[in-house]
C-alpha cells in the first residue's frame, strides 16, 4: 500500500515495517529529492507507535550516486547543508532505520547510506565511497558537523572521507562501516529478518529520540547553525 508516490520515491509499508524506495535512475540528490524526503519523514513522524524504516533503491546496481552536480555547484552550501540536516534527522529519528544498500553509494549517496542505524550491503557488487576528492572537492563541512564523527569509526574516518577510499560490502563490514554484506539474492531476506527482529523489540519512539539526542549531542549542537544557513534560501525541516 503506497502512502507516497512520486517519480523519486515510493513509500510502502507491511505492518510495522515501512520502506522508502528511491526510484529515479541513480537517485541523484536534488532540491526536490531533499524536499520530498523531508515530507516522507514528516509523515513517518506522525505515525503512532514503533516501527522500522528501510531505505533502498529500485536501480539494479546503484543505491545513490550523490548530488546532481549542476544543482550542487549552483549552491553548494545550501545543498550540502540540507543533505547534512537530512542525514542528521535520520540519525536522530524516533524509529530504527536500515539502509538496504543494493549497489553503489557515492559521495552524497554514501553520506545518506551512513545516516541509517544499519547498513546491509551487497557483497557481490557495489562500492561505498566518498569520492569528493576525486571530483576535486573537500568533504563538505555540514557532513562533519552533523554526522560523520558519530557514524564513522575514528580509525577509518580519514581513509573513508579524506583519502576517498572505496570499500566493497565486505570491506565496509571489516571496517565497521556496514554491519553485514550478503550476495544480492539474500539482500532482501537479510534486511527483512533484521527489520522484523527490530520491529518486535519495544523501542519507544520517545526513548529512541531522547537517547539519540544525548548520544549525538556534539552533532546536535550544529543543527541550529545549519538550519539558519539553509533557511535563508528555502524552508528546511529539522
Amino acid at each position, binding site marked *: 500500500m503506497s502512502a507516497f508516490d512520486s517519480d523519486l520515491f515510493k513509500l510502502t509499508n507491511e505492518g510495522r515495517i515501512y520502506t522508502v524506495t528511491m526510484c529515479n535512475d541513480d537517485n541523484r540528490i536534488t532540491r526536490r529529492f531533499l524536499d520530498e524526503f523531508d515530507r516522507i519523514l514528516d509523515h513517518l513522524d506522525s505515525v503512532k507507535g514503533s516501527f522500522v524504516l528501510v531505505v533502498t533503491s529500485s536501480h539494479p546496481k546503484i543505491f545513490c550516486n550523490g548530488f546532481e552536480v549542476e544543482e550542487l555547484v549552483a549552491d553548494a552550501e545550501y545543498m550540502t547543508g540540507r543533505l547534512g540536516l537530512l542525514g542528521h534527522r535520520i540519525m536522530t529519528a524516533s524509529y530504527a532505520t536500515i539502509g538496504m544498500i543494493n549497489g553503489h553509494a557515492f559521495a552524497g549517496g554514501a553520506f545518506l547510506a551512513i545516516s541509517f542505524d544499519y547498513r546491509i550491503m551487497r557483497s557481490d557488487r557495489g562500492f561505498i565511497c566518498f569520492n*569528493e*576528492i*576525486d571530483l*576535486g*572537492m*573537500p*568533504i563538505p*563541512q555540514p557532513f*562533519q558537523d552533523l554526522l*560523520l564523527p558519530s557514524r564513522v*569509526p*575514528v*580509525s*577509518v*574516518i*580519514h*581513509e573513508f*572521507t*579524506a*583519502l*576517498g577510499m572505496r570499500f566493497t560490502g565486505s570491506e565496509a563490514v571489516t*571496517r*565497521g562501516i556496514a554491519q553485514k554484506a550478503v550476495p544480492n539474492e539474500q539482500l532482501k531476506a537479510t534486511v527483512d529478518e533484521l527489520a522484523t527482529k527490530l520491529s518486535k523489540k519495544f523501542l519507544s519512539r520517545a526513548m529512541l529520540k531522547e537517547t539519540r539526542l544525548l548520544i549525538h549531542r556534539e552533532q546536535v549542537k550544529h543543527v541550529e547553525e545549519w538550519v539558519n544557513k539553509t533557511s535563508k534560501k528555502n524552508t528546511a525541516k529539522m
Partner: protein
Amino acid sequence: MSSYDSDLFELTQEGRIYTLTMCKDDNRITKRFLDEINTILDHLDATEEPIILVLASRHPTIFCNGFDIDELMKDPEVLTARLGMLGFRILAASYVTIAMINGHAYAGGAYLAISCDYKVMRKERGYICFNEGEIGLKIPQPLYDFSLSARISVSVIHELAALCSKFTAEEAVTRGIIQTAVTQNDLKRVTYDIAGRFAERNLSRKVLKETKMLLYREQAERIPEWKQKIAKANL
C-alpha cells in the same frame, strides 16, 4: 636518487613516491631527529604535485624505539610537545603518508607510525605498543591531543596507553591501529603497491589538506597553546 642524506635520515624519490628512511640503529628520537624530520617535511610541503610519502626504517627488526631516554629526561615537556606536533603535522599533511613498519614500533615510534594515513606492518615479528607505562611514565598528553585521539578508538587507546598492551601486526589490524599485516617478504611490495595506487589518483594537495583540517579541527585548536608552552620553555 637521494635528495637528503644525513646519518639519521635518507630521503629518496621515485616519481611521485618519496621514501624517508630512518637509518640510525633503532632510530631513537632526539632533538636532532625532530629538527631534521621537520626540515624534510618543510621540503615536501614546498612541492606542489600530489605525492606519497613512505616512512621506513633501515634496521632489520626495528621501525623506531621511541625517544632516547637520556635526552628525553633533560627536557621532557618540550620534547614530547615537539613529537606531539610532529604527529599532527603528519596526520594533517597535504599528501598521503604510509608507514612501512618492518619491526618494533615502541612509544614515540608507535606514535609516528600511527600518525601516518596508512600502516603496513610485518607479521612474524615486531610489536606495536606504548610502553611508557612500564617505566612509570604516563603517555605524554600531546601525543593524545594531537594525533592518537584522531586515529584510534577510545577503547583501544586505553589498551595501548593505560594497559600498555603490545600487539602483533595481526592484533593491531583487528583493533584498527594499522590496516595491513603482511609477511616480511611481502612488506615492500605491498607498501609500494598501495603507494602506487594512491599516486595514480593524483589527490589534490589543497583538497586533501582542506578535508583533513576539517576532520582534525579539534586537534588543530590545541596547537597554539602547545606552541606557547614550548616557546616559554625555550626562553
